[in-house]
């Protein structure tokens, strides 16, 4: 029985609803809402909260949408109110830069997920080294981890550790992985990383596996888990943090959070904020089933409405074309190409 085998293990929770949750809100969360959510989570003992545009540093763009406030405004407002929680940020090289990381640090951010696609860790050495130089808690975050095998993930994680990362994450951006996939990758990392380097798991709930996958990660040696209260995140959301905390409590895993306070935050603050109920529906299930980046969900629904091609067809085609995080422009492009093939759209005369 797993309850006894994991009893006493310590796990650090990292809430994503003020970063990944921005995707589910089309980047429209106000500073007041951020402070309210963060204060509640801080009071519930959540040790890390991620606060930025959904795409992180440099995320404000036509490609990823514009939030009503700058990352600096959000981070400053939240960080100044925290009693114990550390504020973290997301930085994807190619989108965010070291200048923006410095600025986030100046506003009070003390932890960073430096994120690359799961085969492209070597685009992150500058940023990881710079984060460490600033003294930040630094994670190397390998996105779309289902697209690299365990040996490949281990090799990429080793690179990030070499650049200075304290923690390496297996990131299931598409919510595609099953517990065995997670275990194999975490185990492969554990085998090659230094004992003091932590391993984390970031799940999406597109196949309803967020909690099971996170437990599998802990069994294989992970000590950090990302989730978001009420699951507010891209696709069918992240691992719902309050549910995960309850499971941990039952299994004797020590997270240090106050379960009932988390439940209250989910029910009283987060759920009323949602524009749509974040859940496994036809489109988010398609993401998980086809292995597509969770953020593509709302973009595909908009393209479907505009060009008359069903969102599920667009998502399956994006999966087939192996599009990865950051390629949101290819959603409209793909929808238009499909609409032309179906006689719904005319070619511009060249």
């Amino acid at each position, binding site marked *: 029985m797993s309850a006894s085998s994991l009893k006493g293990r310590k796990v650090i929770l990292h809430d994503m609803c003020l970063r990944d949750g921005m995707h589910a809100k089309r980047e429209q969360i106000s500073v007041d809402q951020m402070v309210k959510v963060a204060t509640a989570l801080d009071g519930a003992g959540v040790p890390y909260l991620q606060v930025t545009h959904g795409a992180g540093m*440099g995320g404000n*763009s*036509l*490609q990823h949408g*514009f939030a009503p406030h700058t990352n600096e405004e959000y981070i400053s407002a939240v960080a100044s109110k925290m009693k114990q929680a550390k504020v973290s940020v997301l930085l994807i*090289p*190619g*989108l965010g*830069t*070291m*200048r923006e990381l410095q600025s986030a640090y100046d506003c009070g951010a003390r932890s960073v997920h430096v994120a690359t*696609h799961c*085969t*492209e860790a*070597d*685009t992150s*050495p*500058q*940023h990881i080294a710079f984060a460490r130089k600033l003294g930040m808690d630094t994670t190397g975050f390998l996105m779309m981890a289902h*697209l690299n095998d365990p040996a490949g993930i281990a090799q990429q994680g080793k690179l990030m550790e070499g650049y200075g990362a304290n923690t390496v994450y297996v990131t299931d951006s598409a919510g595609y992985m099953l517990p065995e996939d997670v275990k194999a990758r975490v185990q492969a990392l554990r085998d090659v990383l230094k004992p003091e380097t932590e391993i984390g798991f970031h799940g999406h709930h597109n196949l309803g596996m967020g909690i099971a996958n996170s437990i599998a990660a802990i069994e294989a040696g992970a000590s950090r888990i990302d989730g978001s209260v009420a699951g507010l995140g891209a696709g069918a959301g992240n691992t719902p943090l309050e549910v995960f905390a309850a499971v941990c409590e039952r299994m004797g895993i020590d997270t240090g959070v106050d379960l009932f306070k988390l439940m209250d935050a989910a029910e009283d603050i987060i759920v009323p904020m949602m524009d749509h109920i974040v859940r496994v529906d036809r489109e988010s299930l398609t993401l998980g089933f086809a292995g597509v980046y969770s953020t593509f969900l709302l973009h595909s629904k908009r393209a479907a409405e505009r060009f008359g091609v069903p969102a599920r067809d667009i998502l399956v085609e994006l999966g087939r*074309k*192996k*599009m*990865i995080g*950051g*390629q949101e*422009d*290819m959603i*409209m*492009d793909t929808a*238009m*190409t499909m609409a032309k093939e179906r006689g719904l759209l005319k070619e*511009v005369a*060249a």
Partner: protein
Amino acid sequence: MKKIRCALIGSGNIGTDLIYKIQRSPVLEPVWMVGIDPESEGLARARSMGLKTTAEGVDGLLPHVLEDNIQIAFDATSAYVHAENSRKLNELGVLMIDLTPAAIGPLCVPPVNLREHADKLEMNVNMISCAGQATIPIVNAVSRIQSVGYAEIVASLASKSVGPGTRANLDEFTYTTSNAIEVVGGARKGKALAIINPAEPPLIMRNTIYCLTDEVPDEARITASVLEMIKEVQKYVPGYRLVNGPVFDETPKGHRVSVFMEVAGLGDYLPKYAGNLDIMTAAATRTAEMFAEEILAGKIKLQSMEVA
């Protein structure tokens, strides 16, 4: 016909692909390849293609510049060493085509502003970045019709086509390209995003260009201008192709024009998916040719910069 003799600095993907482009030029001849690793594959390939090589960096080339009559050099090393390379070669009267993000000289996108640089007899011109070469012509095609307050470009590159230099210096790529979208593209504010995709088989280079026009866009004139600009780029990159758009829509930020392009390369050094490599080397070659034609016609005479 007499050709202008060239040196290539940096024996990676870009330097190697340049050999093929320059060998085909009616006015340029590749003579030297400069590297820093005697065992490098790039130097071996350059030797097999008939070039003289040195593994001593630019200092290994300097003693041969005058006797071999090198008049144009292409630098495909890194932003960190470019300034020094340029200073040393300019002193000997060699014109520098800079393919690093250093951007110490004026920024050049051939169909937009090459003529201007040739007329000014610049001794160092910068080619910005692959994404810059692939997208700035389109930004300019829009901004020459109507004022553009903001332009944003997204370049998707096949993982196999992105060398270690670019990977380790993505911030420099971002800064240089964003700035060039403003200075050469004509947008008041520019932003550049790069995505590296490892899919197999490798994906062809894709570029999306978004412009926000100040006024409601004149759809017919902008479309015509974009199509005309694409033809200009196709003169030196035949695989430069419009996939979708221009699409016009209203966003919370304003009037948006979106253009979706792809760039297929000629398949010289890397296969055709690596359009990013080709558009950079083809633009650099096109730039050098314009200067070479002027030199050969006696219209411009390169001079050493020692007096300056």
